[in-house]
């Protein structure tokens, strides 16, 4: 029997089998609710080019990035071998020779076969010798199978080319295959049968790989690019709105997720970069962002997997998340973990499934507008101990409307910082005022805890109060308030110019409006708050202030985009520590202790609370002081007074 019909039959059968193995996913995506991800094609393409073409996120881990780049580029070069292998037999007479198939293409194929093997070697070294912890929970079989298949594909193509050279073909463009040919001569293998056997091994391995892909993480070869293309282009700080067509606020089953959320599940490469940066995972809580995705993915393929929320994904898993966004920042294929978690939390909240502590906090927020259960009238009490009155923005126009936030207003551990900020603003001659008891919790973490209805109530109340004032800009103390006012309130028509107090202070310093008596250059470290840094890009203003205050900054290994969450976000601050082996805040303090600095600078009221508690718990409060950026700034006038 001629090879052509055999190859046709095998190839078509393999393609049919591949489609059949993908059927559930194809059906799921086709039936999923819509998502608007088709706008701004050039910006989307640019992102794909950077993510894949430049391997931007992949190269953050150099070894993984390089080995992936080797395999990735070699794959494209060696794909010409595949085209030739199939083309020449499916369509007799087809050949790449006219465009250089026997010359420069052959040379590239030879060289990249070696590079592919080098990449493969590095991959094997990484996975079986270095064994990074982020692979824990990933499929070991998937990895092993692809190593074997790549080895088969590359070695068979070299043997095939070598055998052809033994049989008399020109080997001058194929230095590596010529070496293989020498080896074959030594082994005295008959050239033609060896070539044919190698050919069919090559074909078999490629088709086996094709059939294998739909059930494996190697789907990412096809899905990574579209998943990155259809990524979310909204600001990072905007939580997903509840689609109007949805009956309840939350998501209780996989089919309710839109097609992009489902495509995310299929695109996961199980690389575990999300798991490696997750504060909940590090603290021993039952959440790995990777397993969250792969568990949901497996449920997508298995109809009998039971309920999604509380079944496939445990309630404790959902509540463990601090919404720090480190996972999404790390993901090379732009998987969106947080929208899924928030949507499933929305379902739990709607069903009334909340822990007693969270219930208390949410009830207080419903009743009083703050999580502490304190009367609204006491919100501005911190101003009493200032030596000057603070303007009521509700009754007189101000330049800057200061949205103070719950912790900065009520928590005695933070009130001193709040007063210091007020003093700095006054010293710089800023015309500012506050909302007094009309301010409510911004709802940032309420929304991320899944309480969409309460968030709407809080947001509407704040938007009404803010709109009733006359002002130019809003400044917030809390990065969480910053995020809600800047990014979330847009969903309710509240578009304001909002900045963090560190940005305002940096602006005042740059304009020479603060007369700072610089410190002696002591070395400090700085913790990037998630909602200031990763969410809103506020990395530099706090650092500028630290330097302006006369200190030397020594960043921690995990800084800026890679900052490690204190553990308070997304409603975690209203929940217990059950199941926590090491609090994220203590993990972070240990990191800072390794630097040998005496001051740990923060720029978020919750950080002041969390890290003060952490240094107390670790018994290091005397050697590592937790100071807000504002507390570092020493005014000359004040110091001489």
């Amino acid at each position: 029997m001629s090879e052509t019909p055999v190859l046709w039959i095998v190839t078509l059968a393999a393609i049919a089998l591949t489609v059949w193995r993908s059927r559930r996913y194809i059906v799921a995506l086709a039936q999923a609710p819509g998502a608007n991800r088709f706008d701004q094609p050039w910006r989307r393409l640019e992102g794909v080019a950077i993510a894949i073409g430049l391997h931007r996120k992949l190269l953050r881990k150099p070894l993984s990035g390089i080995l992936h780049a080797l395999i990735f580029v070699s794959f494209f070069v060696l794909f010409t071998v595949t085209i030739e292998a199939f083309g020449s037999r499916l369509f007799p007479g087809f050949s790449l020779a006219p465009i250089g198939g026997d010359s420069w293409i052959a040379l590239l194929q030879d060289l990249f076969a070696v590079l592919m093997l080098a990449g493969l070697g590095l991959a094997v070294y990484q996975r079986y010798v270095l064994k990074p912890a982020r692979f824990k929970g990933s499929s070991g079989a998937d990895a092993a199978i692809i190593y074997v298949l790549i080895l088969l594909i590359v070695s068979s193509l070299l043997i095939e080319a070598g055998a052809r050279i033994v049989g008399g073909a020109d080997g001058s463009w194929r230095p590596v295959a010529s070496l293989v040919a020498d080896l074959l001569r030594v082994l005295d293998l008959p050239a033609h049968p060896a070539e044919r056997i190698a050919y069919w091994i090559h074909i078999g391995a490629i088709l086996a790989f094709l059939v294998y892909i739909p059930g494996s993480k190697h789907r990412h070869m096809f899905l990574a690019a579209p998943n990155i293309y259809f990524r979310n282009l909204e600001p990072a700080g905007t939580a997903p709105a509840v689609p109007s067509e949805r009956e309840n606020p939350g998501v209780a089953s996989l089919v309710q997720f839109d097609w992009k959320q489902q495509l995310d599940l299929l695109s996961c490469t199980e690389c575990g970069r999300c798991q490696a940066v997750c504060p909940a995972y590090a603290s021993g809580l039952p959440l790995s962002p990777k397993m969250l995705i792969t568990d949901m993915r497996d449920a997508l393929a298995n109809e009998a997997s039971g309920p999604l929320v509380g079944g496939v994904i445990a309630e404790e898993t959902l509540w463990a998340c601090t919404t720090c966004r480190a996972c999404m920042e790390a993901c090379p294929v732009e998987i969106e973990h947080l929208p899924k978690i928030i949507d499933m939390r929305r379902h739990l909240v709607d069903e009334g499934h909340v822990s007693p502590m969270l219930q208390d906090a949410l009830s207080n927020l419903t009743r009083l507008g703050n999580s502490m259960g304190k009367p609204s009238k006491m919100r501005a009490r911190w101003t009493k101990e200032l030596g000057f009155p603070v303007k009521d923005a509700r009754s007189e126009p101000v330049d800057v409307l200061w949205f103070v936030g719950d912790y900065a207003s009520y928590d005695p551990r933070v009130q001193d910082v709040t007063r210091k900020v007020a003093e700095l603003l006054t010293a710089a001659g800023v015309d500012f005022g506050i909302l007094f008891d009309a301010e409510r919790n911004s709802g940032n973490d309420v929304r991320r805890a899944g309480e969409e209805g309460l968030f709407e109530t809080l947001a509407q109340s704040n938007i009404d109060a803010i709109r009733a004032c006359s002002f130019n800009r809003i400044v917030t103390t809390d990065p969480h308030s910053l995020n809600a006012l800047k990014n979330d309130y847009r969903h309710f028509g509240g578009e304001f110019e909002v900045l963090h107090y560190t940005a305002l202070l940096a602006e005042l310093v740059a304009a020479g409006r603060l007369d700072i008596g610089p410190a002696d250059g002591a070395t400090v470290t700085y913790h990037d708050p998630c909602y200031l840094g990763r969410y809103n890009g506020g990395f530099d203003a706090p650092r500028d202030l630290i330097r302006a205050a006369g200190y030397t900054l020594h960043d921690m290994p995990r800084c800026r985009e890679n900052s490690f969450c204190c553990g308070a976000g997304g409603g975690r601050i209203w929940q217990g520590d059950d199941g926590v082996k090491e609090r994220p805040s203590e993990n972070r303090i240990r990191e800072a202790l390794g630097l040998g600095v005496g001051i740990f600078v923060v720029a978020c009221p919750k950080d002041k609370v969390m890290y003060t508690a952490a240094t107390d718990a670790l018994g290091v409060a005397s050697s590592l002081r937790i100071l807000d950026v504002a507390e570092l700034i020493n005014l000359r006038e004040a110091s001489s007074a």
Partner: protein
Amino acid sequence: MKILVVLRMIPDSAGELELTSDGRGIDREWLDFQLNDFDDHALEEAILLKEASGATVVAVAIGEGSNRVLQMAVARGADEAIALDAQADGMIDSRAIAGSIVALARSKAADLVLCGVQSTEDLFGQLVPYAGALLGWPHVSGSSRLGIEGSALRVTQERGGGIAATYEIALPAVIGVQTASKAPRYVSGSKLREASKTTIGKARFEPAGFERSAEIVALRLPGQRGTGEHLGDNPENVAERLAGILAAKGFAGV
């Protein structure tokens, strides 16, 4: 079965209490009001009974912020919400409101009246016996579990020291709830927003027919008793001052 639940709004104890100028009441103008915690449990018990055996729940609220709490009651499962127009601005006097509760129980043809066993303005739990007496119905206070058995009501009553008694009483009845069988449920903001559209009925104040039994002569804020004195952070100063105090009190001959 029809259940009438009484929801009383009381001053938020986290706020700062100030007395009125005549010293005979609390200045309510700047206070936040919240649902009496025991009444919250009474509401939960009513909803649990409705879910277990089928019932219609009528919630009646008294005091500032009634509408908000009634919306919450509807979001949790109450079928009807009524704001009782009690005497403005005063404390909620059980002896005074009992008449209105009784009138509502009659007009709504209630089989069961549930209210919290006590409130900060009814520390001795008088609303339940007043209402029971006026209606001529049996009443039990301090329940920790309610259930319907045939046509009777089973009431478990906390007796302290780990002892509980279970009564079986015929309906209609009045029960003072200490704790619901399950902790009050959380009701989400989206359900609250949905419930904010429900119409809230009004009920007029009905006199109970009692003579006024007593007048408040004076109220007093808790007195400052034996406050501590902070000696500061500086060890030398602290030692010096401590020695001085001890000497002054005659503990040490310096």
